[in-house]
């Protein structure tokens, strides 16, 4: 279960700002309309809609929670409950490159923690943090289903498999 933000959940930026209205682009609206007939209930469209929203905005802000709730005739609390359950929905903005290092057993045996430590040093950030220039966010994730090519790092949607210290460095250096 994804953890709720450890910081104060009642902090002002955890509430939607009524001045900040969000709306899907026309393309996203079209994709949303295509989703509806594929499910017998509106609620079932929630996960795909949140994926769509994350593609649009990079993360699920409190304003997006309210927007999606309106679209699907759900309460914002219901939507937030779902957002906070699933790991993949970002409850905070993430960097341009979201580095997700698998450290589960097979990757660990392949040296994943060394890679994870090296990335922290290289980028100068702690787990879960984003670099000041907004380029990289670094997190540890559970098994990515690619254990035969351990260790594995997922960057945004793409898997990078069979990494070594050197290829990891080169990978990160190549991300501009």
């Amino acid at each position, binding site marked *: *279960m*994804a*953890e709720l933000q*450890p910081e104060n959940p009642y902090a002002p930026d955890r509430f939607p700002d009524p001045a900040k209205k969000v709306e899907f682009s026309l393309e996203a609206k079209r994709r949303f309309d295509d989703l509806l007939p*594929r*499910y*017998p*209930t509106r*609620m*079932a*469209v*929630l*996960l*795909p809609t*949140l*994926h769509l929203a994350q593609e649009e905005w990079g993360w699920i802000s409190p304003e997006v929670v309210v927007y999606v709730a309106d679209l*699907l005739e759900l309460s914002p609390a219901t939507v937030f*409950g*779902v957002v906070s*359950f*699933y*790991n*993949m*929905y970002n409850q905070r903005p993430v960097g341009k490159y979201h580095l997700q290092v698998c*450290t*589960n*057993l*097979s990757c*660990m*045996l392949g*040296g994943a*923690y060394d890679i994870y*430590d090296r990335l922290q040093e290289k980028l100068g950030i702690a*787990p*879960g943090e984003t670099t000041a220039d907004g380029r990289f966010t670094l997190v*540890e*994730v*559970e*098994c*990515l*289903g*690619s*254990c*035969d*090519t*351990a260790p594995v790092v*997922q960057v945004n*949607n*793409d*898997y990078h498999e069979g990494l070594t210290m050197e290829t990891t460095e080169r990978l990160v250096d190549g991300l501009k």
Partner: protein
Amino acid sequence: MDPIKVLTANIDKPDSTSIDTYIDGGGYEALKKALSMTPVAVTEEVKSSELRGRGGAGFPTGMKWSFVPKNAPKPTYLLCNADESEPGTFKDRLLIERDPHLLLEGMIISAYAIGSCSMAYIYIRGEFHYGATVLEKAMSEARERGFLGTNILGSGFDLDITVHRGAGAYICGEETGLIESLEGKRGQPRVKPPFPAIVGVFGGPTVVNNVETLACVPLIIGRGADWFKSFGIPKNTGPKLYCVSGHVKKPGVYEFPMTINLKELLYEHCGGITDDRPLKAVIPGGASAPMLTPDEIDLPLTFDAVMKAGSMLGSAAIIVMNDSVCIVDAVWRLAKFFAHESCGQCTPCREGTHWMEAILDRIERGEGRQQDADLLLDMADNIGGKSLCALGDAAIGPVISSVKKFRDEFLHHVTHKSCLPGTKRYRRLGAVAAH
């Protein structure tokens, strides 16, 4: 025993995902045959093949289908479980990314057999972004050729399939967690009964089957139950994909008849143990399966034989550890996984998995107490069988087996405040990681 290429017959062909490649290899012939049979006859053929579910529990597939009531007031649903999140498992991804039509054909035949099913979903883990695009493309090819959609091949049978992406939660692989998640909710498992076959997704009768299970169906219908049964032994039939990872020289997906010997698989087909070091432990069926020691691995990889050895075949995810591994470190990582993935719904699992992780961490840090090994067993006893879904039971598998089989190593940490000589810790002991 030689490896076989039955489920993996197409994966190495050039352009293996295209419908033309699939049809050239005899694809969609089984669908034509199935549509000329009655749904009951299709189910009977699957029953007589003795196919057992490849998702983890090994439940007989044909029997599961026959639990679905006929003429239920609500539509019936077929859900393909492509959540593949059990650590060590990567076989479904191979089938999806390299031979998507095999899965689609299996789903179409299965939906036909189950009856009154006009929409099926593939619940694919969110991280398999590429796999989802491969499936979307394959589905549009299948629609163009009339294998999907209304009045499939003129039979009057209608079916469409929707690819539904998960969002990063292991518990959504549990069938009722999957159902909740598909309905747009937090993926918290349901109390059974009612079983999904009676009341599942959207209130309708529902069959949940694993990718590999569904991929076996065209083989059974196309070539017959007897041919399928010629692989393996009674009640443990068919070709099987084994995922081997960790300390072997050649990790990967291996296909064998179900009777392949574990020792032979590791030493003759996977090239032996990394660095030619002695073997220390093998997990035969994913993170949930109790560990086996080197003297326990001379056994055929059937559901029943692995169960008899005190573990389980599960998703056939074989994780190998050589003697460089600190067992406390390895088990801590698995405990951390279960603590992170517990859905939080029932107290023994929610609290107990975190406590087990914390105790393993303190033992590893040299801060453990003499009684900690027994404390772990006691906690496991308070989780197992006292939780709502099988995640609770899964979480204690690696803990109990390692404490029982490697007790001296646990005690060494307590007494000497260090790992056993010759073993290493694969993580840096920094601050206690947050979830």
